[in-house]
């Protein structure tokens, strides 16, 4: 088991390195480069552009740029000496040893080209709303998907099962953003029950995440929570409806397979009540493949929220990315790509390990 975990960890390393290379190459290949955002600015002289490129280190050779971004090279030194950090140890070692603090190996993603803010803190600020949204969505999505799948499997070919099938097909075919639009129209514009965009009521509170907001939150926490809750309903519903479609089918298939097993028949033959047979004997085993599936889906909940966030102007990672794309903010985009894809790799790893862990029949 330990050997398996170590082997999987080692396999993940080249993938993460590959991700850094692809991310960097993508940004490098883009025509115009980071100076693109000045392309239509008449006051940008060639000299000023040159100065901008020099200041951002974009006139260095490409391997040097990549090395500095990764944290392999010390930006204050040239030539072979750049491999050593300020303290004389190799630059890529942790800050405590090498004294270096540049590059993503040291947790430094650089500065936003657009706003000048450190990328790390900008992403951290956007992460909280995304985690709130994704967390609520995940909770309801799993709850409903599992319940729907289980009941559809127990009452196979019943009206409920067939309705769930139709729902799954339609939900699977429905574009998330279109569902969001329709919900906005119905509950926001027509019935005027719920707010249609943002995370807080802008007339009542400062923008979410700012210091002023936390002061406001401290004084009237109940009102603030209620406000966020109201804004959460539509995006969460959108995410849940679209995502339970596939998962409820998955749970149903897995549950059907388990219900056909001998130990379920034994449990029934013993005269156990149905509730115990279904939820204690069958469901626990049926959820094993579901666990893996969820592990693989969680990262896409975060990146998939890009769609929902942009519809509802939710101030999270998705909106940060869209704004970054609009403004040619290369550093932000590289940071987001790196972090989200590393989360995907980690989640895949955890899903594999968790599966080996929860199912004792699997031997490695």
């Amino acid at each position, binding site marked *: 088991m330990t050997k398996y975990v170590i082997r999987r960890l080692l396999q993940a390393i080249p*993938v993460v390195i590959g991700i850094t290379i692809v991310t960097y190459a993508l940004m490098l290949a883009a025509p115009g480069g980071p100076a693109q955002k000045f392309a239509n600015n008449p006051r940008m002289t060639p000299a000023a552009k040159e100065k901008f490129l020099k200041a951002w280190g974009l006139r260095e050779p490409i391997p040097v740029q990549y090395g500095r971004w990764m944290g392999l090279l010390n930006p204050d030194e040239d030539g072979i000496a750049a491999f050593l950090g300020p303290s004389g140890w190799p630059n890529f070692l942790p800050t405590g040893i090498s004294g270096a603090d540049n590059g993503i190996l040291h947790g430094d993603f650089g500065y936003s080209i657009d706003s000048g803010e450190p990328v790390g803190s900008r992403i951290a600020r956007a992460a909280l709303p995304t985690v709130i949204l994704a967390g609520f969505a995940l909770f309801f999505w799993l709850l409903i998907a599992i319940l729907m799948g289980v009941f559809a499997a127990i009452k196979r070919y019943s009206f409920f099962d067939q309705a769930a099938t139709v729902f799954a097909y339609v939900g699977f075919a429905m574009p998330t*953003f279109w569902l969001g639009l329709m919900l906005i129209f119905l509950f926001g*514009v027509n019935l005027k029950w719920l707010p249609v965009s943002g995370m807080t009521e802008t007339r009542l509170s400062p923008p979410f995440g700012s210091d002023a907001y936390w002061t406001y939150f401290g004084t009237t926490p109940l009102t603030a929570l209620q406000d966020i809750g109201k804004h959460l309903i539509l995006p969460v519903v959108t995410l849940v409806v679209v995502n339970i479609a596939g998962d409820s089918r998955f749970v149903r298939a897995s549950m059907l397979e388990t219900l056909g097993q001998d130990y379920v028949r034994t449990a029934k033959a013993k005269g156990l009540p149905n509730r115990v047979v279904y939820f204690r004997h069958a469901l626990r085993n049926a959820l094993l493949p579901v666990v893996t599936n969820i592990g693989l889906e969680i990262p896409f909940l975060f990146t998939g929220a890009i769609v929902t966030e942009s519809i509802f102007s939710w101030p999270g990672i998705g909106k940060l990315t869209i704004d970054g794309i609009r403004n040619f903010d290369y550093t932000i985009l590289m940071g987001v790509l790196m972090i989200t894809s590393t989360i995907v790799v980690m989640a895949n790893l955890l899903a594999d390990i968790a599966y080996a862990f929860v199912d004792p029949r699997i031997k490695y």
Partner: protein
Amino acid sequence: MAQVPGPAALPVNPGASGPDEGGATDYEVNLKSLTQFELVWRKFRRHRLAMVGLGLLITMFAAAIVGPIFLPFTVDDIPDAATKAYEGLPPFCTNYLATSLPHTCASYGLTHPFGTTGGLQWDVFTLVLNGARTSLLIGFSSMAIGVVLGTIVGAIAGYIGGFLDNVLMRIVDVMLSLPLLFVILVVSRFFKDQRDNVWQIILIFGVFSWMGVSRLVRSLFLSIREREFVEAARAVGVRDRRIIFRHILPNALSPIVVAASLIVAGNIIGEAFISFLGFGVNPYTPTWGNILSNSLTYLLVGNWWWPAFPGLAIIVTVLAVNFVGDGLRDAFDPRTRA
């Protein structure tokens, strides 16, 4: 009549046994083996949902190709300046009461079955049909690119194996770890030409949809290349290229076709999304995503029909594609019987 023992694997076509020729007792039973295509089609026909899906798809394609020719107006001209209102007309409404606020419909007719847009009063039905052209073109062409790329990569990785297989599969791992929607958005914003860019969008979606197929094809090749018939072919000296294309690939075809249907569905939705955000197809080319994108401002004044119908068109198309995919999966499955 004596039964000549035929090869058990060959299905006997009962209707195809020919008439006795010359009246003499003929010991030859006409064993007509069905081609793979006929076998699949026989099973596919029984799958009711799949046939509905196929019918819908054919209708969609026909409407997309010939529809815009017969429509009374194109997306470029303003059909009815007389009913010019800020808001569009709801479905089946022909004009608003002149004096009422909020507007109430004065008369109904078949002129605008999906209503008209706010502002320029375009017919939404025309828009959706025109959008179908581009959206279907993008969905299916990018699928073709992705499937061809994925099959080539998967075949190389699975057939040759070794170091090359390792490298290719790590590349696939990396590509699958990237949040593809982000990457597609970035690429289409940073790389594409702002004018006529439908083919560029096709290329972008094609280049980012091959990974799943290549994994699938690799695993199929890994198992099929060990089978006896491939060994036999190799033993009689058949060349690698012929083994790949004539012996292994036809046996791997069915899962590929099913995977392709999923790609079409994903790419149609994906295209709609990036166009909706304004990073996709040039906003003056109608696609379902662009129509949705343009409808945003008028959603807040209550013109629900403008975004509703292109969205329904997407749902119907994706549903149809999925039904066909399901039908194909069942039809290709040798365990189900026709």
